[in-house]
């Protein structure tokens, strides 16, 4: 059965025709071309397809497209603002080594965002709980937990205790114009 639904997708009003049996994941990836949301299992077990529906992190592979009528849906594509800068959670994953192969990353970031939007000061147990449904095979979670913690601190308006860039800012970030030969011993 085909039906027409309307919903808010990453801030834009959308109206489209769907089939009753489509999942939200199918609608996003196959029909709307939003490939940032990943399918890792199709059974709600890995969290790679996590998106936010009305402030809740959900597995879009288990969520019927028909059920988003009138709701707000946010995907990874809705996070980077139009200036091209990254959301603090995205930036934190980049800076803290939270990303290796990257396949779990969009889902992981969306789960983290649903939590930190509510409580940027969430403690590590709460973060672990929020990410428990997102499997990562590369990182061992250590740097992902670091990333979420650092993002939370930033979102809570606190100064991060890790350097935002390369670690030791020293010579790497120095621009060519700043260079004086006297400072360098080749």
């Amino acid at each position: 059965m085909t039906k027409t639904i309307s919903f808010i997708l990453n801030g834009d009003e959308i109206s489209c025709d769907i089939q009753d049996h489509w999942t939200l994941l199918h609608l996003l990836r196959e029909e709307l071309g939003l490939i940032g949301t990943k399918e890792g299992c199709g059974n709600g077990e890995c969290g790679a397809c996590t998106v936010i529906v009305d402030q809740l992190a959900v597995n879009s592979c288990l969520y019927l497209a028909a059920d988003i009528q009138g709701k707000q849906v946010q995907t990874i594509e809705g996070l980077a603002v139009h200036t091209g800068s990254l959301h603090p959670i995205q930036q934190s994953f980049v800076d803290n080594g939270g990303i290796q192969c990257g396949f779990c990353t969009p889902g992981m970031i969306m789960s983290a965002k649903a939590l930190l939007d509510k409580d940027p000061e969430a403690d590590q147990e709460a973060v672990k709980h929020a990410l428990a449904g997102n499997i990562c095979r590369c990182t061992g979670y250590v740097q992902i937990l670091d990333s979420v913690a650092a993002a939370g601190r930033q979102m809570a308006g606190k100064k991060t205790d890790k350097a935002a860039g390369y670690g030791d800012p020293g010579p790497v970030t120095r621009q060519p114009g700043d260079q004086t030969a006297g400072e360098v011993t080749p």
Partner: protein
Amino acid sequence: MKDYTVVGQRVPKLDAAQKAMGRAEYIQDVRLPGMLYGKILYSSHAHAKITAMDISRALALPGVHAVLTGKDIPSKMRMGFYKDNPPLKAAKVCCFRDEIAAVAAVSEEVAKKAVRLIEVEYEPLPAVFDPEAAMEKDAPLVHEAHKSNVLKLPWKLHYGDVDAAEKASAFVVEDRFTTTWVTHCCLSTSGAVALFDASDNLTVYSNTQIPSLAQKDFQETLGAMGLKGKRVRVIKPVIGGGFGSKLDTYAYEHIAILLAHKCRKPVKILFDRKEEFEATSTRQPTVIYIRQGCDEEGHLTFRDIRMVLDNGGRTSWGATTPSVMMMPITSLYRVPNVRYDAKCVYTNNTYAQAMRGYGNPQATFAIESCMDMLAQKAGIDPVTFRRINRNEPGDETPQGFKITSCGLGQCIDAVEKELTADSPLADGEGIGYASLIHVGGGARIYKSDGCGAILKMDDFGKVDIFTGGTDMGQGLDNMIAQIVAEELGLLAEDINVVHSDTDVCPWDVGAHASRSTFVAGNAALGAAKKARQTLLAFAATLFETAPEDLVMKNRMVWVKNDPEKSMPVDKLLRKAHFSPGGTMLMADYFYDPPNENMGKDFRCNLSVTYSFGVHGVRVHVDRETGKVQVKNYVAAHDVGRAINPMLLEGQVYGGVIMGLGYALSEEVMIKDGQIKNPNFRDYKLFTAKDAVPITAPVIETDDPDGPFGAKGIGEPGCVPTAPAVANAICNAVGVRIKDLPITPEKVLAAIQAQSKGS
């Protein structure tokens, strides 16, 4: 620490922002105009003859473009190094994983439906699922033509006089250990897209860790199809996890090629998660019999290991893992006399491939568990026992490995310091240690262990470097960029690393054996050195000085003793380009490390250098439930040089958690050849909730042959984890678990047996 500018920096992974935004394109995201979707039908039996197959209903389904069966497979088309595996099986199936038919259709839904419409009749045959039973005389033959279930593979390394050494030993222990099937669980499932151009040249998009060897495999497939001499191009989309799973070509890739040729359209085959569990390869399971001895002072006298490997119904790289198991068996600690024999035995189970460590975790589990048993018998504490037997720089091991840089002793010190700084052990708590050796400077398992690099610089001071190496998330892109930037006095962000397309990237043997930083890194460094030389020669003419008197750093070139004479690199490049008879800066380099192929006796210097590490873990064991909780984990690795400490730590953390899964929870459960848990609900991976505190001390030994001193670190993180945990459990509650995974059931049963016995 040498004065490096970019090497040693925690530069974020070059593609991390793209991935964080959801813009990275994986095999799932490859869509080509007119693309069809392929699906594969697998066997319904572990061992059976195929007596009839009817594809007419599938062919008649609207939207179906082609149906292939084993009869459509050219007779010369065989996969795997043992060549016992056609992409589709015609007469007989040897395991549930056997592919028997495939469909191409306009959508995945239609293709799935068509596969269900294929009718197959089987005549079941007696099957065998235990490798030791499969060696019995009257066992059913998995491949009749092979005449025996034991593969004709020569895994045997004998050195010194084990029998005499055993007689002279003060203490000897022996036991039997087993390791079971586990699997890679890459978050991205497997897939490929194949297409032919109008002249029958082939392009394959595939998740592969071996673009050059896959190109060769696909060329053989084309040859078998009567298309010899046609070109093959392999394009790697962003790879969602490797861990060794992509070191062989798989049936689905060859089937996609056959379907694409038959339909004259691009064909995509993408696995679902169940298929990923059932139709990709596992880590090689083993049965290990070990004897090990030492003298009164605790010096190892001999090591004697016999193994039986369940080869499954077909053969992939799993059957060659004994070649790597030889490494820890002969060379982990100083052991003067060694005997190793391994048999690979066909059964009707699934079959194994490469997986992070390539046999090393299995062998190290037995060796390091046995080390603690021997230490206990000799009355020496486990750390001292390891220190007594540690490898040292300058050693030559029984296999003929020449140890150059070696930080094993420093790793032992670092782990002991970290772990014993904790509070005293509570009731039910224990500490365990285990060490590792691994290849850290390539591993010559093919005619060439080389990798090529092509470098070009533009008018704006930017570099494109085309490497044969493969990034599958582990961070090779950063290794290359940071090495090249360091050599050319640029920033990491100035370097664009291209590693995705055999049409533009040079040859490489593959992303295996923790070799990429060392080999692809040295190749990139070689190209960068040539470019640097050319650029400095040009600048020297310009500044009327000698190239040796120039400094190149932070995007600038200047005269060492006359800093007034300076020029930004981009300006220098433009000057070179636009002067009469202009020069564009380009350089290439092929690095093939000076390591050795194994001889007939398997002795050789397999790698230019070796990586070492020590893991220590503190656990708590619940005596009521058998549950093991990891309280603290320390993983110290001798990496030569950390090119990027953040990415290095990521490799160690990820390896440790994968190793803890191997130790405690992961198992592909197979009953009568059939996988019972092909999903993430029943295959128990660690989640964020199970994350453990890990400290990763980095030992820098500045390897003389590594790029800026670096050695490989991709695999070592998961090698000694299981024995460290087993040793800690034994230290905590006095029971020794010899079969992986160490589930609460096994621990509880051992505790109960122990209390009954006492």
